[in-house]
């Protein structure tokens, strides 16, 4: 007898059928912005190309610019063709997809815009049979999130015939208090279960694979604790500077822009306890528990366990690169951190005493995001000098580029005698699975439409992250740094090396 799916549809065959997502309309606020052009529309087009979207799928773009539906379609066509990653552009697929694209000019602060949107959504519901399902996507300035939510609520479109969900881009506040205020404003209109805070790092295949790697295999989890792991390094390096985002970036800085959200989420995924089930609530509970277990630093601990940096000018190759203070839109006396490193500890039985070193920065030597887990050295070195300064085992999870996992271990060099040399065992996504991996936005958009919040950040997780980061930001805001303190193309300030050296560790070179 066939097992009937939980949905009650006796014809479902979950082993073979693609996950079905319901008909819906995605409303994008900030439809003329960079995120829409570079990420959202290419991701939605790609989902259409893969036939993952339902036939009546629709997009309504909203921004202040006056534009017809056709002009919007043409603009989006150019953007998709330009920014589509690792995939060719198919004119025929685009033609079908574009019939579901609509546009309306509107101001986030103008109630009339939402009335117009309500009318548009009713029309689309009738003509494209979307069942009244709507995903609102806030791709605007963060300062407009609360106004947009209130506008949606005021026009009565936060509820309807189908489900209504709200996707919010980071930053979720600029400190703990503002994060709470933002959540309160969103909750006036949407229940927490309908708020999807997007952290695109969690949508990356390799970050998702951490769960598969840790909890789908039997051999790693027994080693995954303070008895066998000496420390963990999480690196998110960018080789580029602020690339025209100077005015935004100088308000945010790398601590708020990267560590508070992306990198603490990655750390939570690496360090969380196993979830009993793969249910969204269960996985997010474990992530949240871990974030709440991060030791909140006292001011004197901040000085020892964190490093702020800002890049200065340098010649890299044959190119002269400006320092941060010389970037367009940046205050020449800016005190913003373009580099941040921190040593976090987790106050629980599994991780007590194990440092988690996190670093991120701009204008570092290369674009790379990696997690390195360093295991203890053998308790006794029987090979002495032949070990060539034996290096401990290192497990590296490569998030980007060349997603994969490597294990470094020692091996005997061929020939007489017993000389050891470190070698690497590599798993590479590209070669093992071929094809292309979906982009983080493809994964996350599909999840939001399907109502799967596993990879989205919950309010308690946001607050726990801010609780860990806020004391650092508070100390840094009071301190006079001698910026710039690292050159473009370097691996950050010397103080970052000293931070690890105090515990006998060194940053690895990715």
């Amino acid at each position: 007898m066939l097992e009937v799916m939980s949905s009650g549809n006796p014809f479902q065959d979950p082993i073979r059928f693609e996950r079905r997502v319901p008909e819906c309309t995605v409303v994008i606020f900030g439809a003329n912005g960079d995120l829409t052009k570079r990420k959202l529309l290419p991701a939605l087009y790609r989902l259409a190309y893969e036939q993952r979207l339902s036939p009546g799928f629709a997009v309504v773009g909203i921004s202040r610019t006056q534009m017809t539906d056709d002009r919007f379609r043409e603009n989006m066509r150019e953007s998709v063709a330009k920014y589509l990653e690792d995939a060719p552009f198919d004119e025929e697929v685009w033609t079908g997809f574009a019939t579901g694209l609509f546009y309306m000019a509107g101001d986030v602060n103008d109630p009339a815009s939402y009335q117009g949107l309500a009318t548009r959504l009713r029309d689309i519901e009738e003509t494209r049979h979307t069942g009244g399902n709507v995903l609102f996507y806030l791709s605007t300035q963060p300062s407009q999130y609360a106004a947009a939510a209130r506008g949606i609520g005021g026009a009565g479109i936060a509820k309807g015939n189908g489900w209504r969900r709200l996707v919010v881009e980071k930053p979720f506040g600029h400190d703990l208090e503002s994060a709470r205020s933002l959540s309160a404003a969103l909750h006036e209109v949407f229940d927490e279960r309908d708020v999807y805070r997007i952290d695109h790092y969690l949508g990356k295949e390799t970050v998702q694979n951490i769960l598969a790697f840790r909890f789908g295999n039997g051999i790693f989890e027994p080693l995954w604790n303070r008895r066998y792991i000496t420390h963990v390094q999480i690196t998110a390096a960018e080789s580029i500077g602020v690339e025209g985002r100077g005015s935004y970036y100088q308000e945010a800085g790398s601590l708020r822009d990267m560590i508070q959200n992306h990198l603490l989420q990655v750390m939570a995924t690496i360090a969380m306890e196993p979830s009993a089930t793969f249910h969204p609530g269960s996985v997010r509970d474990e992530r949240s528990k871990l974030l709440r277990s991060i030791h909140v630093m006292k001011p004197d601990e901040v000085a020892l366990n964190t490093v702020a940096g800002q890049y200065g000018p340098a010649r890299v190759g044959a190119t002269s690169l400006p320092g941060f203070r010389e970037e367009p839109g940046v205050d020449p006396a800016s005190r913003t951190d373009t580099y941040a490193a921190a040593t976090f500890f987790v106050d629980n039985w599994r991780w007590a005493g194990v440092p988690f070193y996190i670093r991120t920065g701009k204008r570092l030597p290369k674009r790379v995001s990696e997690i390195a887990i360093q295991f203890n050295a053998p308790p006794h070195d029987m090979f002495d000098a032949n070990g060539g300064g034996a290096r401990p085992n290192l497990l590296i999870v490569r998030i980007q580029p060349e997603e994969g996992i490597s294990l470094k271990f020692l091996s005997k060099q061929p020939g007489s005698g017993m000389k050891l040399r470190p070698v690497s065992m590599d798993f590479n996504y590209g070669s093992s699975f071929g094809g292309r991996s979906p982009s983080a936005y493809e994964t996350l958009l599909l999840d939001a439409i399907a109502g799967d919040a596993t990879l989205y950040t919950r309010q308690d997780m946001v607050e726990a992250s801010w609780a860990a980061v806020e004391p650092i930001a508070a100390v840094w805001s009071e301190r006079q740094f001698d910026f710039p303190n690292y050159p473009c193309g370097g691996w950050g300030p010397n103080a970052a090396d000293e931070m690890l050296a105090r515990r006998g560790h060194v940053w690895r070179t990715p």
Partner: protein
Amino acid sequence: MSAIVPQKVLHDLAGLWAGIDRQAGDGSETAGDSSTGVLRACTMTLVVLLDDQPGVESAAAEQYAGEAIALLMREHPSRTIVVHLRPSGDPSLEARVSAQCWMPFGKTQQICCEQIDITATEAALGDVPGVVLPLAAPDLPLVVWCRPIRLFGLPAFAGFYPLAGKVILDSGDCPDAAAALTNLASAIASGKRVCDLAWTRLTRRRELIAQIFENPVYLSQVSTITGVKIRSTGSAIPVSAYYLAAWLRQCLESAGAHPTLEFVSEGGAGRGELAVVEINGRNQVEVELVEGAVFEARVDGLAHRTSLPAFTDHALLREELGLMGRDPVYEATVGLAAKLASGLEPGAR
């Protein structure tokens, strides 16, 4: 009789890789952090059995299979062992090695997979598993794709079962649906991991049906379904018609409906093709293959057309290689399909 020395084949393979590495100017075999050069990729051993007979038809089939293998390697990089079976002559086995490389879109590093071609006479088929075993990539799954379905019934084919995590067949061309389905049902009942591309071809059609019943209104009426009619073209009812009927009956019975089954052969030359499925109850549901891979789903007269990817060997194998575990839906269906085709169940023929 000539024979294959597996050790020599493996040695040739090592030599091939050394040559590719030299050509690429990069001695590394693994990705590491190198962004150029060649990457040797392997996630399984794929054994492909092909007819190697004189004639245009055989040559075309071999070329078609070759194209499917080349495309498959991109998503399921494997050590491919292609066994070309000649119908007659002295029992003999010969082997040669080669590599297939491609440059992924937007990347600078080539990915290469290895292929071992074995030529054997059909009389030597029983010797092939013994050669394949030492040539298989260690600790990785081994899948056998047996393109000529007639080999499935030969005693010599049994030697592949102990090696294979999965055996892929295609009963789509079988003139005797009852015999093919009975053999498949019997293999599965005895614990062998066998799948049939004739069943794989039904996935998208089954998915369309499932999608229709995602609508809560239609789903609530499932128990009112009283009959299923399956129309097919060709001189005989095809295997796929029995699969679809068996699957629908199982699904509907699990939802409390007890439909009658009716098969209608619309005649015509050539092999039978599934044309229309009608599900009759309070709602009238029809799914028809209009042309190529374009389907029309009609519910109470409302029509919706969907264009699906063509049923190429590549597309079908890609789906099967993505499923290395058990397939409970297929396993539950094949037995009933065999009974329907053999007239052992009511509503058959």
